[in-house]
């Protein structure tokens, strides 16, 4: 029987009967123990732990053994590594007992004993701690516990000092083997876990979730597993898909799909968490969600980061790409625009702004600009719609009468589509602000037909 901390606080104790527990905590939920779910949870944790070391093995009695001896320098020491693993486990939503020791069996025994601060680094202190542990921790010694207690042998230290041939004859070789493993006299052999070739992880939510931003917690758990998988396979992910499974009502509902395509492949989850957070914040759910599935659709081999000797001003291109992806995720792709002028005489056709490409384009694809650009009268602001100007005393009027201060620039183009025939002028108002105005030339009419003036730009 296992308890949540809340149930513990309500006074429920292990070994209580169902009715007694329900009397103390009427709102408690009782679950049957399910071996499949436990195995799945252990598998999920093992996958997440692969980000710390490729050597992860499953031990007896719901334990995982990680050989981190080779990567202690990388993670900055045992303490930091333990802290990071504990944080990963918290993100996954599980509680665990962490311990580390020079031998795997020693660490296993310390973890099973549930001692606080189960960290030993030297063999001598491990032996001291092991000697104090009770005999019942050794699985092969459990059938002989009564006998061992009868001869006054309660701790592993006392067990170790018994004569070996007699102990082997009475209890079998397994007890001695395990003791030798713990003390480093034997070489331990493990079956290391293999990461699956493709990644797809699912999570059932405990409740029906109606607000999309509450799903981030579940998504973070799945991302944690994906990080472990990516590190183990030496992959970086380019495209992921999060499927939100809906409750099946009268009609089956297709799951909502969140597709994240990245310009720059990543294998750490911070950036993905930020992107998913913005995407989920914008999502409006039309039905409650009961499950999440995360899939890595496109992966590529991990490229090691290349560090330059001197940091570039303004950050690396990867950082820039990450910022742009974040902006696109929150504001929408149609609101993050990049200038890409087109070769066209008509100003509104030439001033083209396009959404960012999914992949950063190389410099060679830069648009060619018209020759003689620096002298061309082009205003900084181009109005989205030209404003028809009032006429007062045969002069266009915008706030004040406008005075033309330049010669006309005739633009006549677009016969294949929207034909335009305009004379553009720079005009100056009474407040000395400059405007870009044009006179529409109507085909077939004389020059002195009543001219129609429009305001098209402001010189910002």
């Amino acid at each position: 029987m296992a308890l949540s901390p809340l149930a513990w606080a309500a006074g429920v104790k292990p070994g209580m009967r169902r009715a007694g527990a329900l009397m103390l905590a009427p709102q408690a939920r009782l679950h049957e123990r399910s071996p499949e779910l436990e195995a799945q949870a252990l598998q999920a944790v093992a996958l997440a732990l692969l980000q710390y070391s490729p050597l992860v093995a499953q031990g007896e009695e719901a334990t995982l053994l990680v050989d981190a001896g080779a990567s202690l320098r990388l993670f900055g020491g045992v303490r930091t590594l333990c802290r990071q693993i504990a944080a990963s486990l918290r993100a996954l939503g599980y509680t665990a007992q962490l311990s580390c020791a020079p031998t795997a069996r020693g660490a296993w025994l310390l973890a099973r004993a549930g001692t606080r601060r189960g960290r030993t680094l030297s063999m001598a202190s491990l032996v001291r701690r092991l000697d104090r542990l009770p005999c019942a921790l050794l699985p092969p010694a459990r059938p002989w516990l009564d006998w061992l207690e009868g001869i006054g042998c309660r701790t592993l230290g006392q067990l170790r000092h018994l004569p070996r041939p007699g102990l082997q004859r009475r209890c079998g070789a397994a007890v001695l083997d395990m003791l030798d493993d713990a003390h480093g006299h034997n070489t331990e052999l493990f079956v290391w876990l293999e990461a699956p070739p493709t990644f797809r992880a699912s999570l059932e939510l405990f409740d029906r979730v109606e607000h999309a931003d509450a799903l981030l917690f579940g998504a973070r758990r799945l991302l944690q597993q994906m990080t472990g998988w990516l590190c183990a396979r030496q992959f970086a992910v380019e495209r992921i898909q999060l499927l939100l499974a809906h409750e099946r009502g009268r009609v089956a509902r297709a799951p909502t799909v969140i597709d994240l395509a990245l310009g720059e492949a990543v294998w750490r989850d911070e950036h993905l968490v930020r992107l998913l957070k913005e995407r989920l914040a914008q999502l409006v759910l039309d039905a409650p969600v009961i499950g999440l599935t995360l899939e890595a659709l496109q992966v590529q081999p991990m490229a090691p980061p290349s560090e330059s000797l001197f940091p570039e001003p303004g950050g690396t291109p990867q950082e820039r790409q990450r910022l742009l992806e974040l902006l696109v995720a929150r504001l929408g792709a149609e609101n993050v625009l990049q200038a890409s002028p087109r070769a066209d005489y008509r100003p509104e056709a030439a001033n083209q702004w396009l959404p960012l490409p999914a992949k950063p384009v190389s410099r060679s694809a830069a648009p060619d600009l018209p020759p003689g650009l620096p002298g061309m009268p082009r205003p900084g602001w181009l109005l989205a719609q030209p404003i028809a100007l009032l006429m007062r005393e045969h002069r266009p009027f915008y706030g004040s009468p406008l005075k033309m201060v330049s010669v006309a620039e005739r633009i006549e183009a677009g016969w294949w589509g929207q034909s335009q025939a305009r004379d553009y002028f720079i005009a100056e108002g009474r407040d000395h602000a400059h405007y870009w105005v044009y006179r529409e030339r109507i085909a077939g009419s004389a020059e002195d037909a009543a001219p129609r003036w429009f305001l098209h730009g402001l010189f910002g």
Partner: protein
Amino acid sequence: MQHSELMAAPEALHPSLWRASQLGQGATRCLDTGFAALSAQLPGGGWPSGSLIDLLVQQPGSGELRLLAPALAQLPGLPIVLLQPPHPPQALALAAQGLAPSQLLWLKSAGSKDALWAAENILRSGSCGALLFWQSHVRADSLRRLHLAAQGGNTLFCMLRPLHGAQDASPAPLRLSVRPAAGGIEIGFIKRRGPQRDAPLFLPLQPPSLLRRHATLDRPVPAPASARSILPELVG
């Protein structure tokens, strides 16, 4: 003796000390404005990067882009973000000032909350060369927050607001007003680390024209009309 020397030149003690009659010389990095007359009036000799610059503009189209363009052209290859501009910006006009179109990013946002979020994230990431942010109403605590975010990086951060915001307090160390004037623009110094200056600074800034028929004067001065020089029938 040494004490009196120190009292004579206290500004030599620390770079962030200055006399009320002198321009401050903060340790911040500055970008040259491209206008010698303006650079001489700014502490540090240019636009300070990594801090909030408040530009109060009489109306969109007062010459604010042409004022900033020479400084922006000194950031080759870095993105220049135009956040919530009042009108669609024209890439050709900015390209004529030396800004590559691939640098220019135009961000539109649905509300001011999104815009402030975007501005803060751009400043925090520090991977953009410049951020020009148009916002008409902004609360003082948001300004302070943006100023703090800007100090973490080296981004040239300019906030462009209407002229009536000049009365409100702002954490920006540099606040200028921009008004169009005959033949250029007039820059008023609302706040700077230096002596108070009431007279606006005139910068000649003409829009590019296909053909200049007249040589530009520094300032067009109205010709004094002497008595009897104008025919009475013209006046009447």
